[in-house]
C-alpha cells in the first residue's frame, strides 16, 4: 500500500515544477522581461515564444517566470510573518490562559470578523502600496488563523501530564512552551502554513490585480491579469497564462496541505 497519499504527491510535483521554474528564472529567461519589441506584439504561442507575446511584444513566458519569483517571495515572507507572530501569540494565549487569553482572543476575533482581503486593502490604503507593504499586509492577515490553531493546541496540551511533569521539575515556562509543547502542536501549524501560502498568493494576485499590490517594474501575475484584460480578445493567451499559473501554485500548496493532513490521519 502506498504510504504517501496521492494528494501529497500531486502537491509536491506541482510545487517542485513551479519552484524549479522560479529558480531557473533567477539566472535565465528565454527573453528579456522588459525589452520592447514592436514587431512581435500580440504574437500567439509559437516555438519561439511558448506563451506568445504581450501588447509590448514582451515574451509572456519570461514575464510569467519572473513573476513567479514575486509569488514565492511574497508567499514565503507573508507566511513567515504570520507564523512567527501568530504562533507566539497563540502559544502565550493558550498556555497562560486567564485574562491574557481573553484579551488576546478578543483582538483575534475582531480581526477575523473582517474578510481578510478587506483588512489587507485597508492596510495598503493607509500605508501605501508596493512590495513591502503588500507583504506586511498579507502577513498580518494570516496571523489570526495561526494564533487560533496554536492556541487550541496549547490549551489541549498544557493539561497533559508531560507538561505537568516538566513544571514539577522546574523547567521554565518559556522552555516548556517552545521546546516541550510546540513540537507536539507543529502538525496542524504546518498544514495551516501551506494553506496560508496559497492564500497569500491569491491575495497578492487580487491586490495586484486591483493595482494596489505590487507595482511596476516588479512583475506580478495578478497585475499581468489586470493588464491583459483589455486585450483579451486580441491575445487571450496573455490573459489566460497568469491565471493558470496562479491556479497551479495555489492548487499545489492545497494538495500539499491535504497530503500532510492525510499522512497525519494515517499515522493515527
Amino acid at each position, binding site marked *: 500500500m502506498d504510504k504517501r497519499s496521492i494528494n501529497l504527491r500531486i502537491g509536491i510535483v506541482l510545487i517542485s515544477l513551479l519552484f524549479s521554474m522560479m529558480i531557473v528564472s533567477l539566472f535565465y529567461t528565454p527573453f528579456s522581461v522588459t525589452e520592447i519589441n514592436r514587431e512581435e506584439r500580440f504574437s500567439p504561442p509559437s516555438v519561439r515564444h511558448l506563451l506568445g507575446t504581450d501588447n509590448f511584444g514582451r515574451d509572456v513566458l519570461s514575464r510569467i517566470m519572473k513573476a513567479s519569483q514575486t509569488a514565492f517571495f511574497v508567499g514565503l515572507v507573508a507566511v513567515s510573518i504570520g507564523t512567527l507572530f501568530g504562533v507566539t501569540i497563540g502559544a502565550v494565549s493558550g498556555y497562560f490562559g486567564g485574562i491574557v487569553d481573553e484579551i488576546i482572543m478578543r483582538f483575534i476575533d475582531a480581526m477575523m470578523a473582517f474578510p481578510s482581503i478587506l483588512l489587507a486593502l485597508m492596510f495598503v490604503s493607509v500605508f501605501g502600496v508596493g512590495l513591502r507593504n503588500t507583504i506586511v499586509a498579507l502577513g498580518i492577515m494570516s496571523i489570526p488563523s495561526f494564533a487560533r490553531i496554536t492556541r487550541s493546541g496549547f490549551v489541549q496540551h498544557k493539561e497533559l501530564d508531560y507538561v505537568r*511533569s516538566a513544571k514539577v*521539575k*522546574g*523547567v521554565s515556562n518559556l522552555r516548556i512552551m517552545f521546546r516541550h509543547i510546540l*513540537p507536539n502542536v507543529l502538525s496542524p501549524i504546518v498544514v495551516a502554513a501551506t494553506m496560508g501560502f496559497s492564500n497569500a498568493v491569491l491575495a497578492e494576485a487580487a491586490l495586484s490585480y486591483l493595482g494596489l499590490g505590487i507595482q511596476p517594474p516588479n512583475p506580478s501575475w495578478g497585475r499581468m491579469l489586470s493588464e491583459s484584460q483589455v486585450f483579451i480578445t486580441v491575445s487571450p493567451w496573455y490573459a489566460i497564462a497568469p491565471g493558470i499559473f496562479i491556479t497551479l501554485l495555489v492548487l499545489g500548496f492545497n494538495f500539499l496541505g491535504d497530503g500532510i493532513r492525510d499522512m497525519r490521519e494515517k499515522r493515527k
Partner: protein
Amino acid sequence: MKRDILEIHNLRKHYRLRRTRLLKKPGSIKALNGVSLSISKGESFGLVGESGCGKSTAAYTIVGLLKPTEGRILFKGDDVTSMKRDQKHEFRKKVQLIFQDTSGSLNPKGTVEWILREPLRAMGMQKGEIKELILESMNLVGLDKDLLGRFPHELSGGQKQRVGIMNALILNPEVVIADEPVSSLDVSIQAQMLNLMNDLQERLSLTYLFISHDLNVVHYFCDRIAVMYLGEVVELSESEELYRSPLHPYTQSLLSAIPGETGHKLERIILEGDAPSPLNPPTGCFFHPRCFRRMAICSSVKPKMTEVTKEHFVSCHLY
C-alpha cells in the same frame, strides 16, 4: 522519635465556579476540604479513595502544581506555602511526582534521553555530569542504555513506566508522590513495578506517598493508609490494622467490594446510589446518605477525627 518529613495541615482546595445567575452566589467545588496528614521519613504512606475524593488534587497541591486555598504544607518543619522563590525551588526538587498514566507523562516528541535531560538542564548541570547521571539512573531502574535514543511510542508499557519512575527520581528527591503508578498496568508488570519501587526505596532512602484506588495494592505496599471521601480523610491507620478492623463504614464497604476475595471477614456490602458530587456535598457527614449505619445526628453534624485505638483515627459519629 522519627521526625515527620512531610506534614499537611488543614489543606483546602476550592474551585470557584462561574456565576450562572446574577444575584446568586457562585458555587464552589471543595476538592479538598481540610486534609491533615503527617508522613515520617522512610515510610510508605497510602492514600486511598475513589474518583472525586481529592487524592490527586492533594498530590498536585503538595507538589506545587496547584495553589492551596487554605492550609499549610511543611517539609522537614519548614512552611512551604510561605517560602520565597529560591527556597521553594529547592523544595520542589525534594518532592517529586510519578504520574498516573506514564504514557501521558512522557513527551511524545522527545527521546528518553532528552526527557531526562530537561530537568537537569533546568537545574544548571553541566553536560558531562548530566550524561553520567542519566546512565546511572537507567542502571538503577534496570533499563538498557540503548533505549536512551528511543521515543515513548517505541517503548513497551513496562519500559515506559520505568522511564516515568526515573523521571521522578532524576532530581534526587527525598519524597516521591506516586499517583496511581500501577493502575493501568497488567498484573505481571504491576508486580515488577512494585518490586522496583520497594527496591529503590531501600537504596535511595525514599519516602513514598502512594495514591491508589486499589486497596490490595495499597495494603501490600504501604505502612499506613488514609482513606479519603469527598475531599476529607475519614480514616487513618496502620495498614494491617485497617484491613483487619476497618472502623469507618465507608472503609468497610470499600474492603468488602474488593472482587474475588474469598473468606471475607465482612459480608459483601453494596452501597446504594452513586458517589455524590463535590459540588453539592451532603450536610453533616458527607457519607451519611449512603451509609448503612447512619444515625440521626449524621445528617446535621460533621464528625470530628478521633483516635479510637492506638494510632487508628476515624471521623465518624459511631465512635
